[in-house]
């Protein structure tokens, strides 16, 4: 008796496809902001423990990216910007992305909990859960406020970095959280202004699709006007030195100038593209300055020094 068994076509997915699934560019920003949260914490961390924490955060971010691509494969296929991703391009099956994402999420949280501390692991689990469950599955297709609320997931890595070093949370990492949280809407809305057709075709209710370009430009300016002073807050509160303060004032001023130009742009998307590009530089600059500031005021302890290892 012969039995016919239905089975999936053997996979042709290469290692590169799985790496692409983890959204390496997003991952690099997550690792960088987490590193800053970890370094500015008042408790010095053993380099091995710091590496372990950052590796787990990176893998956790990759897991969130993979699960996002698993769920959003239908949307990605309809958008020019994302149509070449591994799933819509047919190089990887959705089930493979789901299994990969869940495995990475499980490993990153458990390893962070076992080797670093349980609180940081719970924060990482909450971040992955928020990005996948709240943003990707629930809000992204429901409301133009998707990236405003969903931005919380992207803003949590510096808090996780701080928690990895200290085992808790304080005002300082929450200010960093607020900076990334307020930065997210103008950053993504600037992009969505010149990708509005793409989002409309995919049925994603981004602000320009739902409320129009004029309202989006207004909202970008409003958020930037709040973001710029909050960006200076670490200096005003005394968490960072004058070097950071000067950089934050200048970069915040440039963000406002660009947002005003976006607001006044009647035709074309030159200002929107400039705003999108500069917003990445702005966030990188602020966090890099925090890092430089901390290195200048409290150089890293020598490798043979005493570090609490969180046992």
């Amino acid at each position, binding site marked *: 008796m012969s039995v016919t068994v239905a089975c999936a076509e053997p*996979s042709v997915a290469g290692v590169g496809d799985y790496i692409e699934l983890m959204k390496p560019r997003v991952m690099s920003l997550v690792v960088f902001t987490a590193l800053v949260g970890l370094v500015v914490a008042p408790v010095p961390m053993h380099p091995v423990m710091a590496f372990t924490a950052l590796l787990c955060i990176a893998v956790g971010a990759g897991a969130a990216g993979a699960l996002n691509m698993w769920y959003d494969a239908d949307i990605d296929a309809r958008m020019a910007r994302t149509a070449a991703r591994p799933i819509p391009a047919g190089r990887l099956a959705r089930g493979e992305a789901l299994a990969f994402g869940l495995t990475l999420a499980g490993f990153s949280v458990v*390893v962070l909990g076992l080797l670093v501390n349980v609180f940081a692991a719970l924060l990482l689990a909450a971040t992955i859960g928020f990005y996948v469950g709240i943003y990707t599955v629930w809000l992204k297709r429901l409301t133009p406020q998707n990236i405003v609320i969903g931005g919380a997931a992207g803003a949590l890595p510096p808090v996780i970095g701080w928690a990895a070093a200290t085992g808790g949370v304080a005002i300082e990492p929450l200010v960093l959280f607020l900076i990334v949280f307020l930065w997210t809407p103008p950053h993504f809305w600037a992009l969505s202004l010149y990708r509005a057709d793409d989002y409309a075709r995919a049925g994603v209710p981004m602000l320009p699709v739902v409320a129009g370009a004029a309202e989006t430009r207004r909202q970008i300016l409003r958020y930037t006007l709040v973001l710029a002073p909050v960006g200076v807050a670490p200096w005003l509160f005394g968490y960072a030195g004058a070097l950071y303060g000067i950089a934050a004032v200048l970069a915040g001023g440039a963000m406002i100038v660009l947002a005003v130009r976006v607001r006044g742009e009647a035709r074309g998307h030159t200002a929107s593209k400039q705003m999108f590009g500069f917003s990445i530089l702005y966030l990188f600059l602020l966090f890099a300055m925090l890092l430089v500031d901390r290195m200048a005021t409290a150089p890293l302890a020598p490798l043979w020094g005493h570090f609490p290892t969180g046992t």
Partner: protein
Amino acid sequence: MSERNTEAKPEPGIRLTEQQQRARRARSIAIAISLGVLAALFYIVTLVKGPGLLERPL
């Protein structure tokens, strides 16, 4: 003996193409490296934490 009996029968099951075999091999190597890194990480962290690792409350 008939010619039919000497013919090699195709083996049952899925036959991977060369591309699929290459991809599977690359994935297997990546998994092996990841597991190696994980084992090394646990080993090194255990050395760093020292005996205190076993003293925390469960």
